[in-house]
């Protein structure tokens, strides 16, 4: 029995050891947890820029990619140190409720409306995003919605509202609750329309026959912001690391890297004039 007890003890210690394992580095708490939208991860941007940040500062960033609504929820509950998201209204509410310490604009790109090359609803002629959605609704063409309270989902619902349409529950309107990648693939399989962020589209477009059918409307502007989680709410979080990432990503090195990121030769994210 004693031998068994020792075995359990040793295994428990081994468990602890690998749970704690982290490289020795300059910062006191090198591990930094970032909750973010699926677009920054699935577009490959984070995998491209974060190694530079880690090298420059000694922090080790752990990325949880879930969507804007979920990321902010994770921050609210104190389960991450910093969030990188894209839904300004939700971000402002997060700050107003005292869950965030600091917020900064990071970069932007735009949303686009994708659809089958045949364009059965004829949205390519539409002069605005709201007109495009109105045409889809009028034709009753299939539209795939994220339906997951992500930044893209919030934007999509805003445009439907602006178009004066309540699509929820209609037969041609399919809410999937999936990330941007799967939604683009579903739209491709079903030859349906969908709203996508440009970065994920660039990463996925070789795998589909879809086309960009509507773009350029001011309402499709897609800004990304970074927010440090409030150390006043959660004293044990890695606030120093969160602030370091915020300063780096909005500083010269981070900004230059973001601007230089290309997929298939196309720029994915754009910078604000600072």
């Amino acid at each position, binding site marked *: 029995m004693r031998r068994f007890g020792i075995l359990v003890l040793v295994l428990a210690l081994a*468990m602890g050891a690998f*749970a704690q394992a982290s490289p020795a580095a300059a910062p006191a708490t090198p591990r930094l*947890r970032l909750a973010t939208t699926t677009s920054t991860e699935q577009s490959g941007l984070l995998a491209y820029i974060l190694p530079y940040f880690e090298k420059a500062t000694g922090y080790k960033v752990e*990325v949880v990619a*879930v969507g804007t609504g979920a990321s902010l929820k994770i921050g609210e509950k*104190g389960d991450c140190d910093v969030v990188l998201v894209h839904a300004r209204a939700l971000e402002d509410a997060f700050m107003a409720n005292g869950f965030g310490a600091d917020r900064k604009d990071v970069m932007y790109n735009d949303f686009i409306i994708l659809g089958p090359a045949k364009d059965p609803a004829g949205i390519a002629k539409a002069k605005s995003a709201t007109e495009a959605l109105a045409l889809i609704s009028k034709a009753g063409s299939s539209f795939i919605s994220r339906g997951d309270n992500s930044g893209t989902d919030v934007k999509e619902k805003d445009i439907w509202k602006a178009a004066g349409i309540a699509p929820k529950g209609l037969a041609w309107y399919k809410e999937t609750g999936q990330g941007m990648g799967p939604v*683009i693939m579903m739209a491709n399989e079903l030859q349906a329309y969908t709203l996508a962020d440009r970065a994920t589209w660039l990463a996925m477009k070789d795998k589909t026959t879809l086309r960009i059918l509507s773009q350029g409307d001011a309402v499709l502007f897609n800004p990304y912001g970074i927010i440090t989680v409030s150390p006043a709410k959660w004293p044990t979080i890695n606030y120093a690391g969160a602030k370091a990432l915020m300063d780096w990503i909005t500083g010269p090195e981070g900004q230059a890297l973001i601007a230089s990121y290309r997929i298939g030769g196309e720029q994915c994210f754009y910078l604000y004039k600072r």
Partner: protein
Amino acid sequence: MKEAFLLLASGDAETWATVLRSLRFSFFSTLFALIPGIPAGVALGGRDFRGRRSLIAVVNALMALPTVVIGLFIYTLISRSGPLGFMSLMYEPGGVVFGQAFLAFPIVVSTTQVGLSKLDPRFRETILTLGAGPWRRLVSTLFEARAALVAAVVATFGRVTGEVGVSMMLGGNIRGTTRTMTTTIALDYNKGEFDRAVSLGLVLLVIALVVNLALHALASHED
């Protein structure tokens, strides 16, 4: 399919690291489920006592819980805003192992209990008449029911290696720390990249076969 084999054969470091990480999580979660699960199964599979049937019903009901429900339940426990938040298990290997052990526990209890209840009733009487003490009785019983115990280990290990809900919700699919075979497959599906997903699916299949064959060989060897 060809790319999937090439990826494995070329020894892609990240793919293999993911395989090893999954196995490590499964090993510990199976272990942590066995430690309380076998005694509980022995208790339920032995002499009848008041409430035994209800307890068995509860265990069987727990087995039917989907992984996302378990994930959600453990999430509320180990989130920093939850009662166990001070342990910092959320989005850590420890959190995944905790959730998987919880998932595995009723499987261990049930397979052990069912195995023991199938033992010849005269066996218990025999060792009692031979004057064995309680400790000795337990060891003999477990030895007699070793096929059931092996089945418990196989079923548990297979279940935790193949589940995705708990790992995704509690681990967060963090590259290099909590990304497992199944969460990688989910991610690759999300990205529309099926080669690595298929290769990991093959590894899962092979692991299931090897674990089953090895443990059954072990059990029949001892007979």
